[in-house]
């Protein structure tokens, strides 16, 4: 029987948030790309929460955007509410989050994919990898069709052997009843890839008409909307927003959950996959935070053209009747009608320590992986890996060095470094606390940090790069100016000080010195700064942050220098850890397995202690000494 046989540069398996970015990046870099999906209707589907961004995830979206990705633009075009979180904290933890119209989000992304040159979307289930001599050759689909490619990117999300569970009911399907991919796992294992099983979950969707919003607190969007994408004009997206609603669980909710724990598949041992600690189900929260008498429930719209509402904070895998009972204890949900049940989903994925920082498999050249398949959770984490995998798949075909961002450059760097060096036993979620240098990795300066990489890779236009260069120059010049302007002690100055509750000046001070005062800012000083040039708001923001937090930023830069020194101590790939007798057994085995590229990376491998690193450095020093003597 003759089978279809085609050849592409890059094959992308999956069209979720990772797959979309990977496929777009590869195609935009000129690669003939084919992107497989089990259903064309499920491109960029949001099967869980109806929002993009949030604490630290907002950073990822902006970084993806700076590199030339699509996620930021897509949410800017389809959001229905937007909010900058953590405004009361420092700028490092400000985070943008937008509620999406789910179906619009998916529809727009599908349109972008379908209209991108060199890119074909193909509905089919990939069932087999074709590997020869440790190198990927292509993939095979369920029908037996063969697609040869120089590089393949696996973005299978939660579809591998997916199983949805609530109570004692389970379906062997992907999210929203979509077809699971039941064959690929076998091929992965045959090719020496270690596979594991994770789980995640989602709350019920309920009918808006059955909710009593009077018993809930309305949550509005920001008055002035900040876009995700650096290329979106802020004025173009100001619009009427849809509200979310806040309510709380109570003792009664918790009692029902506690009394039915034995019917929870999670606690009854039906679910074997490991779930995320940071996005726990409501039954997890009740057990783990037993002292809390209530938990927040965010009631969020799923879109403009549906009455479905998402019950954020109450994901569950309880049986249907328990779900009804517990939801109906929550104020405003007394008569709630469920449209879709909450459920947990189990799926096959890998431990990403099998990957290099480029997201290419160590053992199979040309095979890349991104997204939930790598053990992460979240749309944004997926997109971030997707764009890097897509870029690096293209660079592999082009014979170029891969793009690797380090921990001091981007949250993406932190995310991928964590995934590929630290063995994680639960779905990995991005958090600001994971970024050691977060004051430098702000969401507001992602363009200044990363546009150059997108430009060098070929995803960012010359015009946009020039725009960033211009912005950099304006910031630099304005900071220099402000540092030299002495403000004097005139009456208007003193008046301004009084107005802001700031100590009056005894002698003159520079504007820069005053910006540092907690109660003042660059913006506040405008009335006494007649020479100030007209600057865009984003430029002024950078000037303010850089001056105001100068000391902290400088200290963080020094920490980065220390970090870079360790990163630059490279470990030869052929180093035989088993010969280093001072290492503890566990460290020996871990290092031998991971083969870290540098002392810095080695120090982050879990199970390797600083004492082991000392031994390693001493050993390498000895090695150097003995080589010198030879």
């Amino acid at each position, binding site marked *: 029987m003759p089978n279809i046989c085609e050849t592409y540069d890059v094959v992308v398996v999956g069209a979720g948030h990772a797959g979309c970015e990977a496929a777009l990046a590869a195609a935009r870099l000129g690669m003939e790309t084919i992107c497989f999906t089990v259903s064309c209707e499920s491109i960029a589907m949001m099967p869980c929460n109806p929002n993009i961004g949030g604490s630290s995830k907002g950073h990822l979206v902006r970084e993806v955007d700076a590199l030339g990705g699509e996620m930021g633009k897509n949410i800017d075009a389809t959001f229905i509410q937007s909010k900058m979180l953590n405004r009361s904290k420092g700028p490092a933890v400000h985070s943008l989050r937008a509620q999406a119209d789910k179906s619009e989000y998916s529809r727009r992304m599908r349109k972008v994919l379908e209209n991108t040159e060199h890119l074909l979307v193909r509905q089919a289930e990939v069932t087999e990898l074709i590997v020869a001599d440790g190198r990927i050759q292509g993939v095979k689909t369920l029908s037996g069709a063969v697609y040869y490619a120089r590089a393949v990117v696996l973005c299978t999300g939660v579809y591998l052997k997916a199983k949805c569970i609530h109570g004692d009911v389970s379906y062997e399907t992907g999210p929203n009843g979509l077809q699971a991919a039941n064959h690929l796992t076998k091929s992965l294992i045959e090719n020496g890839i270690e596979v594991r099983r994770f789980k995640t979950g989602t709350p019920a969707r309920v009918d808006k008409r059955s909710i009593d919003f009077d018993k809930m607190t309305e949550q509005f969007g920001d008055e002035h909307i900040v876009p995700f994408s650096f290329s979106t004009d802020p004025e173009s997206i100001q619009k009427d927003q849809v509200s979310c609603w806040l309510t709380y669980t109570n003792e009664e909710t918790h009692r029902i959950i506690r009394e039915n724990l034995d019917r929870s598949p999670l606690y009854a041992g039906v679910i074997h996959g490991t779930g995320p600690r940071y996005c726990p189900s409501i039954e997890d929260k009740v057990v783990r935070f037993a002292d809390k008498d209530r938990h927040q429930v965010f009631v969020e719209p799923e879109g403009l053209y549906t009455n479905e509402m998402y019950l954020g904070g109450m994901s569950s895998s309880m049986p249907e009747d328990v779900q009804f009972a517990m939801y109906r204890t929550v104020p405003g949900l007394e008569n709630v009608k469920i449209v879709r049940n909450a459920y947990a989903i189990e799926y096959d994925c890998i431990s990403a320590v099998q990957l290099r920082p480029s997201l290419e498999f160590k053992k199979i050249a040309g095979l890349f992986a991104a997204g939930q398949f790598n053990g992460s959770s979240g749309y944004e984490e997926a997109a971030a890996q997707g764009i890097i995998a897509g870029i690096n798949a293209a660079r592999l075909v082009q014979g170029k060095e891969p793009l690797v961002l380090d921990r001091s450059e981007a949250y993406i760097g932190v995310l991928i470094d964590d995934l590929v060096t630290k063995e994680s036993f639960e779905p990995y979620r991005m958090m600001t606390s994971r970024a050691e240098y977060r*004051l430098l990795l702000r969401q507001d300066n992602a363009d200044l940090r990363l546009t150059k990489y997108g430009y060098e890779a070929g995803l960012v236009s010359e015009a946009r790069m020039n725009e960033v260069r211009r912005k950099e120059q304006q910031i630099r010049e304005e900071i220099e100016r402000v540092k030299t302007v002495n403000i004097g002690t005139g009456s208007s100055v003193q008046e301004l000080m009084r107005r802001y509750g700031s100590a009056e000046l005894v002698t003159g001070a520079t504007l820069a010195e005053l910006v540092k005062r907690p109660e003042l800012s660059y913006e506040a000083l405008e009335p006494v700064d007649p020479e100030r040039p007209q600057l865009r708001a984003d430029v002024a923001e950078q000037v303010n942050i850089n001056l105001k937090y100068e000391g902290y930023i400088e200290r963080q830069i020094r920490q980065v220098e220390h970090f870079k020194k360790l990163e630059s101590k490279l470990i030869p790939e052929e180093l035989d850890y088993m010969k280093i007798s001072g290492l503890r057994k566990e460290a020996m085995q871990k290092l031998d397995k991971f083969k870290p590229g540098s002392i810095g990376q080695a120090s982050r491998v879990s199970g390797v202690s600083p004492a082991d690193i000392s031994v390693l450095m001493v050993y390498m020093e000895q090695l150097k000494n003995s080589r010198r003597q030879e």
Partner: protein
Amino acid sequence: MEDTIAAISTGMTSPGGISIIRISGSQAVFVADSVFQAKKKHRLSSVPSHTVHYGTVCRDGQVIDEALAVVMRAPNSYTREDVVEINCHGGMFVTKKVLEAVLSAGARLAEPGEFTKRAFLNGRIDLSQAEAVMDLIQAKNDYALKASISQLSGRLSEKIREIRICLLDHVAYIEAALDDPEHISLENYVHKLEADVDNIVNNVHNLLKNVENGRIMREGIRTVILGKTNAGKSSLLNMLAGQERAIVTDVEGTTRDVLEEQVNLGGVTLRLMDTAGIRNTEDSVEKIGVERAKKYAQDAELIIFVADSSRPLDNDDYAVMELLAGKKVIVLFNKSDLKTVADRNVLAEKIRQIAGQECRIIDISAKKQTGLDALQENINDLFFDGEISADEEIYITDLRHKELLQEALDSLNLVKDGISCGMSEDFLTIDLMAAYEKLGFIIGESVEEDLADQIFSKFCMGK
């Protein structure tokens, strides 16, 4: 590091008593077996770990010494390798003979510090302990030795670990709250943080205060003896140098070209400057020149002013007194065995007038060797507030530790500044983490980029 090493592990200078030859490595027991014959004829390779055996050390059939052999098997030994320690009767000659026998049986002579290096590399001790061992090896006197031992037993590590746990708890809490504001609140948290940071600042401050004492104990007190001709400087020097436990070495001053002599006085080392001048010429202040005397006085941490009680005070004495201003001074009223001519009240009054400070005056007779106890007591008072209890305190004996403590303190002060400026918690963690890291360097729980160099320079200094 497969080879087996051996060395005399008791001090070479220790008079009499017992000497220990330590053998460490995979062949340690085998090597010991080939030189040691147990009384009961059993082989050491067949005995359990941590047992002591009586027998003789032989070479070529000749008995060298009676000895006890202690067998400690890996990993429960100092180096975490197989270790045999041979306790013999001491005496340099016999000890060396035993070592030679061990070496001829296949062990290699250990390099200085090599046991410690193995202990560290095998994870037996952490970095601060390893460094304390280095100090132990080079400890010049009893007190520094005790300080090293207290550091070795992990007291410093313990203290620092305690502080780090507290810092990490705060950072962890703040980070958790930033990531999960629903469940973890930062409201009023900063007050709790401030109290703990204040407490830690005090702790680190106290550790730093001990740095100076630690240095003095290890390096000794730079001391100059001043006095007019024939006041008795030379005989004082001889008296000090004649102390039973004194270590007298001539050290060519590297920077000032000054001859320095070290004497040990009741556990504290005095580094006597320009002793050659005193010995050879018994110079008066005029003769060596006021400028030179001034320079010594400036450099000195302690001035011992020798006044002659058998002669009246004169201009030469007053010239010396001018150099005492602002210094730690001990006045020795020498020749107390002779009839006192100079009035000690007048002497005290003159010093008060000229140098502007109170001094204690000690009667001493260099000739009759009396008054040394009082001198020693006064030195302890002056330098250790009379509390020189080395085994109770944690002394910092390493300059690197001092710098790291100072840096940690700086970071902690920045945390306090941040709090007083009302910075949000996500800023405070930057300096909290910096302090945490710095303290981690001291006990080797943070990874330092030039650590290998530091360790190597320590191990290779030839101690």
